[in-house]
């Protein structure tokens, strides 16, 4: 059973890699066929991954999230599941599959470095609250991972949009004096957003590609969805992750109270989950605060994810 679990794990990893390439191909060249194929392969990968996790649980005779390898594997499973089953319902988000699967492949590859054979747990870890705690931490970590991927893409796209905007400002006088057909390669579209009170300038996306322009050369808007859409995706993921993370911390405290007689002892694990929690609470506030929305909030989210990773990697492997 252990062998079957490891085999399906490898199959899932390979399928994710293939799907990632398909997604990235679609991202770069906008052809629909690789996307359709990538989605099918990703679903197959998800099925293999789920089988691997179930087999692992059967082999160990307990829930399959009892050590770091299993934790990381299930986080990867949850990332892909949430992405395929929920996020992809937004069609524009399908362009992001390559990045999400890339993150998953990294997580899974890292998990093999801490592989252990399945086995029973020490008595202190045999607790219903602990099982609930870890499961909640896994699902919220997966959502935070998605939020992180979207936040980084948001920051990239936001920079690009700002550059385009600045460029448009500089060109604007020249355009006014130029006559129709000034040789600009792209159509310029000016949208004004009443809520933001500012106008955004976008370039017609497809025209440069089909004729004349080099295939695959990025348009100035880039291939990513608009920064506002990425920001929205990131916020959705983090907003769902936050209460789950809160619940995970509470469940962990209840378990700690049962196992060691204290619900909170400021041990490094607890400290870093607290720091993570505070940073994401700061993110949610920043999004609700004028002047902090957008890039500053995104930076806080990145810091929050860094704290999460620190807890998972450094605290688990080095401090304790």
């Amino acid at each position, binding site marked *: 059973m252990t062998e079957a679990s490891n085999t399906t794990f490898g199959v899932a990893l390979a399928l994710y890699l293939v799907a990632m390439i398909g997604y990235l191909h679609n991202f770069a060249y906008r052809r629909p066929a690789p996307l359709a194929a990538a989605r099918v392969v990703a679903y197959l990968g998800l099925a293999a991954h789920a089988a691997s996790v179930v087999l692992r649980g059967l082999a160990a005779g307990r829930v399959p999230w009892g050590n770091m390898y299993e934790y990381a594997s299930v986080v990867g499973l949850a990332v892909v599941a949430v992405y395929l089953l929920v996020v992809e319902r937004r069609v524009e988000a399908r362009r992001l599959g390559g990045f999400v699967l890339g993150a998953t492949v990294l997580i899974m590859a890292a998990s093999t470095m801490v592989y252990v054979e399945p086995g029973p747990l020490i008595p202190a870890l045999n607790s219903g609250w602990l099982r609930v705690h870890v499961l909640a931490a896994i699902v919220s970590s997966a959502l935070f991972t998605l939020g992180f991927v979207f936040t980084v893409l948001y920051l990239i796209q936001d920079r690009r949009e700002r550059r385009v905007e600045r460029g448009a400002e500089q060109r604007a006088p020249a355009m006014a004096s130029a006559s129709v057909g000034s040789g600009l390669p792209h159509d310029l579209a000016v949208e004004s957003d009443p809520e933001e009170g500012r106008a955004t300038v976008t370039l017609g996306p497809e025209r440069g590609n089909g004729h004349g322009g080099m295939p695959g050369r990025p348009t100035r808007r880039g291939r990513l969805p608009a920064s506002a859409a990425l920001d929205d995706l990131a916020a959705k993921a983090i907003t769902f992750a936050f209460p789950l993370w809160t619940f995970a911390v509470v469940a962990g405290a209840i378990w700690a109270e*049962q196992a060691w007689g204290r619900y909170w002892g400021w041990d490094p694990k607890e400290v870093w989950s607290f720091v993570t929690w505070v940073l994401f*609470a700061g993110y949610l506030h920043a999004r609700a605060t004028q002047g902090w929305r957008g890039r500053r909030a995104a930076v806080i989210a990145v810091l929050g994810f860094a704290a999460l990773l620190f807890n998972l990697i450094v605290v688990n492997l080095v401090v304790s």
Partner: protein
Amino acid sequence: MATGSFTRGMRSVWRSLRSMRTALILLLLLGLGSVVGSLVPQAPSSPARVAQLFADRPLLARVHDALGFFDVYGSWWFTLLYVLLLISLAACLIPRTRGLVRGMAARWQPARDLEGMRHFASGRVEGSPQEAVGRARRALRRRGWGVRSGGETALAAEKGLAREVGSLAFHWAFFLLLIGVVIGRGFGFTGQATVIEGEVFTEAHASYDFPPREGRFFDEAHRGFQVRVLDFEVSYRESGLPRDFVSRVEVIEEGEVVRTEEIRVNHPLGHRGVKLYQSGYGWAPMVEVRHEGELLASDPLVFVTDDPNDALRPWRGAIKLPGLVPQVGLELQLLPDPAAFVAGRPMLEARDPFLAYRAFRGDLQLTEAQSVFRLEKERLEEYDSGGVAIGETVELPGGVEVTFRDLRQYTQLLVKRDPGTGLMLATAVLVLVGLIPALYSSRRRIWVRAMPEGDGTRLEIGGFALQRKGAFDEEFGRLVRDLVPRGRVGVP
């Protein structure tokens, strides 16, 4: 003059405490402080590592010490940040709560400038204005809107108050959570008790292994009940990994057994607000020592191991006989399962246990504080060594007789009282319950106004959402279609 500027200074401090950014920064600083606490060894939990640091790098250690880094959670600055956070949270929340209560009580004014709202629509419906508003009222109620005020020909409605209520519940719950921590610390205690099978532990200050940590307001309110450990048992899996640790105990109140219970890992025993947790275990050989026929020692002795996870190691202990001249000390090593020891297998159970000894004589130096588990050997010389199997007796040179009478186990219990736990649990639940509407619902308002137009009525609808404005666009459209079913609708 001076008092004027003092008041002004206090005002500005107060103003900044009232801002939520201050609260979050204070919270983040507490987080940073605890990061320090997670990286620097803490004196209350690992005094040896702190002492080591003082020995290795005295200057660094002194600086850390002065900054309170060796006891972050007891340091003055951590306490200060904590208190400031409490004040700041309360200062944020009181005005917000008052605002919510006032807003709920107030009757709304009919809005004048409906056209100026972000969402506006108007259309013609049948019937009189009164009838039209009545229909709108029912339709809104059906959709879960709280209709707040109106009169005959106008109304105002609101939905999503849960967001504000939930948000306030969450923030207040977090405030109470912070209070609960203080209560638990101030009024509770934590102690450790080592109890050998068959022996009785009394829940009193003096009977703990070392003085229990008691809160500032605890006031020596120990319960005084007794716990007899009937037996202790470790069960193992085939792989040698422990499966469970169980202490069977009787709780005794005023000499009478009131309960018989099991204490196991993750299943503490609670009695009268005091909880007992399974936290450790070990071997306790009963060794009788006689000298010229006189019984000098017979109590079971607590033995320790240097690594509780390594069952390959012998357990160790010591017997000190200061009454003899010269004084005699025995250093003992217990092999619970000598056959396993020889074969290099872990010694999980007692099978023909064996006690190895080294005997010393001279000056035990008992006038100085020392461990009960080892001898101070500077002024001792070894004069014999050997071993004794269970049930046997050996005679050392000089007439000391050692009998290995029996082997028992001891259990180590963590004993704790924390009167804040119930509050903590309740507030944690409230934090979660409040968080859901605070994050996922949005507040939106709608105004409806009706005026006669020909033989029918012109209905004007204006609305806005405080959050999730995008989602409201759609909802507003559906509402308008509901309220103005057949009329011509103009959405600008």
